[in-house]
C-alpha cells in the first residue's frame, strides 16, 4: 500500500469559448499560479509535474515539453498522460501515484484545452478505428444519441426528464464564477433548442471551452502543514473497458465501465451505501441523459429510477446528494481539463472553499471522468484521512 495523499490546493482559469487574450502556455500558468497560491507555496516547492490534454485540439505535439514556461517544469520531472475525455482524471490519478509511490512529496497536476484552436469534431473523429468504427460512431455525439434513445426506450424516460438535468446544472453554474455558460436554461428552453442528433438538442450537450485547471497534491505529514483541510484520496479507480465502439453499444447493460469503476472505488473507500455516505458529487456528464443513466450505474439510485430521483430534487443544491454544484460539464468543457475540474471541484467541496456553490458539511466527495470509448474513472476525496 502506498502513502496517504491529499489535494492541498486547486486553481482554475475563467472559461470562455475563446480566450484570445492568452496562449495555451499562459492559460496553463493562470491555473498553476492560482493552485500554488491556494496551496500557499511557490513553484520551487513542487517536486514533479503531470500534465495532460488531447494533442489534436491544439495541434501541438509533446505538450509536456512545449508548456514548460507555463507549467513551471523547468529543471523538474514532467510527464504527459493523455486518455481522451478521461485525461483530467487520469492526470489526477497519475499525480496521486507520484506521491503515493514515495518518490515525490509535492506534485502538480495540470489539465488544459484550448478548443478554440481546433476543429473539435474534426479532431475527435479520428479516435475511432479507421476501418471499422470511423464510418459509424465517429465524433462525440452519435454514440451518446444512441445510448439516450436506448435508455428512453427501455425505461420510458422522456426528453423533459433529461432536460431537467440540464436545467439543474446550468442553474448551479450561476453560483460558479469560473463557469463558461452562466446563463440559466429552463426545461422548456432546452426542449426548444435545435436538434443535433435525436434526442440530443443543443441545450442537452456540453459546450467547448478554453481553460485550464491545476491541483497541488501532497503527502501525509506535509499536507497537514499546508492546509487545515486537506482533501484525502480515499479511492482512485479506472475502467477503460472498451477498445471498439462496436463492443460498447449494448446499452441495455448500462455503462459497464462506470459500474465497475464505482464498485472498485467504493470498496477502496469502504463505502457500502453511496447515497448516504457521499455528500456531493462532481460528475463528468457531457450530455443530459448521462445525468440520468449514469447515476444509476454509479449506484445513486436503481435502474430506471433516475428520472424520479432527479425529478424529486435529490441531486439539486439542498437535495440529498447534490450533483455538480459547479455547473458541471454542461456549463464548462475544456476537454483535457474537464475531468481534473471534477476532481478539483470535489476537493474544493471537501476543503469548504466552494463559496456560493458550497454544499454544507462535506465529508466525502465523489468525482468522475468519462471519455475515450465509454471509459470511466472514479475518485473519492474525503476530509478524513483513510
Amino acid at each position, binding site marked *: 500500500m502506498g502513502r496517504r495523499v491529499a489535494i492541498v490546493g486547486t486553481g482554475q482559469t475563467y472559461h470562455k469559448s475563446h480566450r484570445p487574450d492568452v496562449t495555451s502556455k499562459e492559460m496553463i500558468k493562470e491555473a498553476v499560479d492560482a493552485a500554488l497560491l491556494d496551496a500557499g507555496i511557490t513553484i520551487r516547492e513542487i517536486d514533479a509535474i503531470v500534465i495532460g490534454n*488531447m494533442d489534436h485540439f491544439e495541434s501541438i505535439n509533446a505538450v509536456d515539453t*512545449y508548456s514548460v514556461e507555463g507549467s513551471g517544469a*523547468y529543471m523538474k520531472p*514532467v*510527464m504527459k498522460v493523455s486518455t481522451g475525455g478521461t485525461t483530467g482524471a487520469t492526470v489526477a490519478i497519475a499525480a496521486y501515484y507520484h506521491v503515493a509511490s514515495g518518490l515525490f512529496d509535492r506534485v502538480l497536476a495540470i489539465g488544459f484545452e484550448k478548443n478554440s484552436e481546433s476543429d473539435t469534431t474534426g479532431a475527435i473523429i479520428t479516435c475511432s478505428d479507421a476501418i471499422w468504427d470511423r464510418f459509424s460512431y465517429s465524433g462525440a455525439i452519435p454514440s451518446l444519441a444512441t445510448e439516450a434513445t436506448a435508455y428512453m426506450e427501455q425505461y420510458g424516460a422522456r426528453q423533459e426528464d433529461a432536460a431537467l438535468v440540464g436545467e439543474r446544472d446550468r442553474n448551479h453554474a450561476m453560483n460558479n464564477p469560473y463557469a463558461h455558460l452562466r446563463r440559466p436554461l429552463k426545461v422548456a428552453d432546452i426542449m426548444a433548442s435545435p436538434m443535433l442528433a435525436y434526442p440530443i438538442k443543443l441545450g442537452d450537450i456540453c459546450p467547448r471551452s478554453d481553460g485550464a485547471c491545476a491541483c497541488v497534491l501532497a503527502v501525509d505529514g506535509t499536507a497537514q502543514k499546508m492546509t487545515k483541510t486537506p482533501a484525502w484520496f480515499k479511492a482512485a479507480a479506472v475502467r477503460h473497458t472498451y*477498445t471498439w465502439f462496436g463492443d460498447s453499444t449494448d446499452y441495455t447493460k448500462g455503462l459497464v465501465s462506470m459500474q465497475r469503476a464505482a464498485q472498485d472505488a467504493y470498496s477502496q473507500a469502504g463505502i457500502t451505501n453511496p447515497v448516504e455516505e457521499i455528500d456531493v458529487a462532481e460528475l463528468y456528464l457531457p450530455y443530459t441523459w448521462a445525468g440520468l443513466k449514469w447515476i444509476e450505474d454509479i449506484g445513486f439510485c436503481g435502474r430506471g429510477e433516475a428520472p424520479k430521483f432527479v425529478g424529486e430534487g435529490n441531486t439539486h443544491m439542498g437535495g440529498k446528494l447534490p450533483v455538480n454544484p459547479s455547473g458541471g460539464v454542461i456549463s464548462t468543457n475544456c476537454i483535457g481539463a474537464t475531468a481534473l475540474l471534477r476532481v478539483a471541484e470535489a476537493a474544493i467541496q471537501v476543503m469548504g472553499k466552494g463559496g456560493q456553490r458550497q454544499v454544507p458539511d462535506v465529508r466525502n466527495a465523489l468525482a468522475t471522468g468519462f471519455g475515450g470509448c465509454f471509459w470511466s474513472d472514479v475518485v473519492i476525496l474525503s476530509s478524513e484521512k483513510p
Partner: protein
Amino acid sequence: MQKTAIVGMAQTRYERRKKDRIFADMVFDVTRGALEDAGLTIDDIDSVVTVSNDFYDGRTISGMAVGDASGGQDKNISTVSGDGTFGAFYGLMRVLSGYQATIVVAHYKGSEGSVPVTTNGMFDPIFQRHLGIDAISSSALQASAYMSRYGITEEEIAAVSVKNHGNARNNPYAQLPLSITVEDVLRSRKIADPLKLLDCCPVSDGAAAIIIANESVAAKAKAKPVWIKGVAHCCEDYLLGDRDLADPVALKEAAKRAYAMAGIANPLEEIDVMEVLEPFSYMEPLWLEGLGICGAGAGAKLAVRGVTAMGGKLPVNPSGGALSANPVLVAGLARLIEASLQVRGEAGARQVPGAETALAQGYHGPCGQSQCVWIVSGKQ
C-alpha cells in the same frame, strides 16, 4: 524505495514497414511475449501503462487502439504520451503505490506517418514552426553547436555510427546491421548539415513491452529479476534559443538523481554497460558527457579510442542503438530492455561479459529536452 524488478520483456523485430501488423497486433505480440518471458499470465498483472502519441499514430486518444491488446480490459490502465522510459517510470510508480505488477507497452509505426510533419508539431506554432524545423533539422543545429564548441570533427562523430551499426549485427531485433567505415558515413548523402544519412536513424515500425513487479511477484516469475536501482527524469527549457544545446543540463540532473538513488559515485567505474537513445550519431557522445562518463567535449573521443566498443572499458549500445532501429517512443523502452537483458546475461551475441549494472537512457521533446535515466542490476 521498496524493491521492484523488471521480470519480463519482449520486443518485435524492428522493420521499415510491418504491413501485416496493425498497432494492436504488434502490442498483442509483445504483451504475450513479455508474459511468456516472465512465466506469468495476464491475471498476475493488475496495472497497465500504454505508451503512444496521437501525432505519430494519426489518431486522437491513440491509447484506445491497444487497450485490449495490452490486456487492459477491466484493469487500471493509463497512457503516457512520451518516450517509453517515461511510461516505464509511471509503471514503476504504480507498483510502488501498491499494485503487484504493471505491464508497460509501447508501439510506433513510422511507416504510416511523416516524420517532418509530426515532429514539426513539437515546435512553437507562432515563431518557429513555419521555418520547417523538425526533429532532424533541430538535431543538426544541436550537432553544430556541440561540434563547433569543442572542435569535434565529422570523422569522430562518424565513428559512433560505424560502431553502433556494427554492434547491430549481433542483435536479431535490429533493423540496420551494417558493416561500414568512417569513409562510408562521410560519403553518405547530406541530410541536414552536418548530419549525413548514416548519422541518422532509420524510420522504423515496432513495439516493446516490459513487466515491472514487486518482490513477491518477482519471486514467482520464471525469469531472473532485473532489480531497479535508480531512476529519475528532468526537463529543461523549451525554446531552442533559450537553451545551450551543447550542454545537456536536464540529463545531468536526471543522472545525478538516478546515481544518488542507486548509490553510484563513479559511473564510469561502477556501470558495466550503457544503452543510450541516439537517433543521431552526435547524441551518443553528448549524452555520455551528460551522464558524467567524461568531461565536456571529451565524449567524441570515446568511440574513436574504442572505450565504448564491445570489449572496451564501457560498451555503449551493444544492441546497435537507435541508429540501427528507431521506433520513436518504443526506442527508449528498447534501451531499458537491452540494458535488462545485459544484466540478466541473456543478450546473446551482443552480451557484455559479466555485466552486473547497466544504465538505460531515453528522452522526449526536441534535442533531448526531457531526459530519463534508469539504473538496473542483476544483484538485489
